């Protein structure tokens, strides 16, 4: 009996030691890979001004433009920076540079982060923020925070936004390079290996037409998220304190926009409160046509040109009044 117990104990010790060695080996290999991978990705990502990361990366690492467009994917494909910049420069005889930093899902935590980072580098003259009419009704888009993770340890503004929005567990995981580049590494790598010039000044031209769409009137009764409101207000305050000409716009959509919704009204109120020019093209009859849209949310190239022209003339009027 004692013998069998002794054998069992010694087997257990051997087994435990073997498992421990395997476990430590796996951890060590993962750690080494993590360090090397992080080093390579840092090098790649900070040189990357293409695709999904170009907008954020530009704001964080390379922003020097005088006119900046902030917003989500709608901003990226609806605002033609060349056209807007040229019109302003021709009208006022300036030599302002322009960049469209629009990126998928980018919403209020990004505007704040981007605005802070822009100012840290160089204060822009004009900032155009493209807002979705329902943006203040939503909670933080957690899945979109992933775009910021690669910059966590190199940019204090990103760190602050992520620390404020992520859970404790995510903050712990942020110490691992693989987690920071989870999923994003693919975009960063492909755009580094195959750089394109398809996105001039951050603008993504979309093609195609949206043929099958229905605009069904729907009431939006969602309440305003106080956190979203506060973030937008903070962004406005930063811009005004630095003397930036700020414009808030709503792009055209191939869907019904409830202008009586609490979120929409709050945007209007905020703009009025801070005396910010507010341009809403969501239900513009000249623009809300299937032939001008790539899908219900994004204009195609033709639509983007028409919209940018219309918007620029409004901006010029507003700037002329001030000057």
């Amino acid at each position: 009996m004692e013998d069998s117990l002794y054998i069992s104990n010694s087997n257990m010790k051997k087994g435990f030691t073997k498992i421990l060695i395997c476990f430590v080996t796996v951890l060590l290999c993962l750690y080494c890979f993590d360090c090397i991978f992080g080093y390579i990705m840092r090098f790649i990502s900070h040189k990357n001004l293409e695709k999904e990361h170009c907008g954020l990366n530009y704001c964080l690492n390379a922003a020097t433009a005088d006119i900046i467009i902030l917003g989500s994917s709608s901003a990226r494909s609806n605002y033609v920076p060349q056209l807007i910049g040229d019109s302003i420069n021709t009208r006022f005889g300036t030599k302002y540079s322009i960049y469209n930093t629009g990126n998928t899902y980018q919403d209020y935590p990004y505007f704040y982060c981007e605005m802070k980072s822009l100012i840290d580098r160089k204060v822009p003259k004009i900032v155009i923020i493209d807002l979705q009419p329902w943006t203040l009704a939503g909670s933080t888009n957690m899945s979109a925070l992933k775009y910021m993770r690669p910059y966590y340890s190199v940019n204090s503004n990103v760190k602050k936004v992520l620390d404020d929005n992520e859970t404790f567990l995510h903050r712990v995981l942020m110490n691992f390079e693989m987690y920071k580049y989870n999923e994003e590494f693919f975009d960063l790598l492909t755009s580094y290996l195959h750089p394109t010039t398809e996105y001039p000044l951050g603008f993504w031209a979309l093609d195609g037409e949206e043929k099958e769409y229905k605009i069904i009137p729907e009431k939006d009764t969602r309440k305003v998220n106080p956190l979203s409101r506060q973030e937008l207000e903070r962004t406005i305050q930063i811009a005004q304190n630095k003397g930036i000409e700020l414009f808030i716009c709503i792009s055209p959509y191939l869907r019904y926009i409830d202008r009586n919704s609490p979120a929409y009204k709050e945007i209007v109120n905020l703009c009025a409160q801070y005396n910010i020019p507010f341009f809403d093209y969501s239900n513009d009859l000249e623009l809300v046509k299937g032939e001008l849209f790539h899908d219900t949310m994004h204009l195609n190239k033709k639509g983007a040109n028409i919209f940018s022209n219309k918007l620029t003339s409004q901006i010029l009027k507003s700037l002329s009044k001030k000057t």
Partner: protein
Amino acid sequence: MVVNSIIFWLFFAVVSLPYFVLLRKSYKAQNLWLLLASYFFYGWADWKMIPLLAIITIVFYWLGLQIKKNNKDNPKRASHLTTLGVVLGVGVLFYFKYLGFFVQEFAHLFESFGLNAHLSTFSIIMPIGISFFTFKLISYVLEIHRENIQPTKDFIQFATFIAFFPTILSGPIDRPGEFIPQLNKSRQFDYDNVAEGTRRIIWGLFLKVCIADRLFGYTSAVLDNYSHHNATSILIAVLLYSFEMYADFSGYSEMAIGVSQLLGLKVRENFHRPFLSQNTSEYWRRWHMSLTTWITDYIYMPLNVRFRNLGQYGMYIAIFINLVVIGAWHGANWTYVLFGAYHGIILIIIAATERKRRKFEKKYSLKKKAYYKYPRILITFLLVTVGLIIFRASNLSESFEIMQRLTYGYGLPFVNKTAFVFGIPFILLLIFKEFKDENKYNIHFLHSKRLSIRIASIIILLICVFLCGNLDGGQFIYFQF
């Protein structure tokens, strides 16, 4: 606290250290520790339902002893007690899972006749894992009545079997005859168990976060808004949903089996490469095996015996009822009933044509021919995919609309980068591995004879999980059942 969360692994570390270090000499102490851990785990998910779990466990423990006592001396009373157990188990399941649905359906029925039923809609909170632990309880009393097992006199042992934390939320549904005897001896730290358990957990994690959660982004975007997508996108989404479902549920099962194995306990297998089945009958023998064998043993077999005077038709009725029960087990919705009925009809066709088919296969020696085998695998997969359209839809009309949308309007598909870049290549890896395993080529990298290859495989899988997996993914699909 799901098995793919860090909090679970902290909990597991706290449970396993005393389990293997302090308590390893006494199996009773290990069982008690496991029971406490299981109740803590269950309470973490839904603490309000702990009394229900405890009471129902006590009642079935008592029933088990009473059935055994009366089996020989008073068989009639034993039968009554068994019936009571079955009615109680099914009743609890019915009350929490189906009552609200039936009340609502009756109210609708009355309203369609112009009568106001005055049945205010009420919602009953369904205890998590109820479909799994009630089936364990029912099998316990049935097995004792059939004298296949002896009831355990050790209440802790029985309660541990019912509440065992790796399996209580989503199975596999264990059988008392297989699980309880394992609790009769102390479990030691064993290299083979730990190594195999770890491999299964990592593979399960890979299936969940790299395949299921990656595909979820596409399937939910398309199928939840199918009216906004063209037929190509819907077709891709329904095909991917089959893999998502498989990766999600088999991923969970792998992790549950792996965790059990780490604790030195063997639980039932749940999947055996179901997408390599050559007909849906075989598919059901490979998919969610712990449920299908349970229903076969306790519903199909007795029904088959009962209807035997009807000849072959009796078997068809039994098959149909069997599949409808499997469908309805998933929840209170007509879609699940239709899902079961759909598979029931296919299985009846298979059963009715089996003799002729076998004759045909034998005559032309088709069974192992690739040109016969692979199209059959593909057809089975497509039939299963159609079933899953019904399964996933929130109501019957939605499932028909999705099928209708598949018949027209093909064009460029909606593209979801992560599903296409990560999900689809990993599906190909999964298919490759399953084919190799099925054909016994045995190149399974996680089970290589060389330790270095096994370790390298684990490292590569973990890198895939961290780099390509959806680490913000949601719950397992089967938690809702």
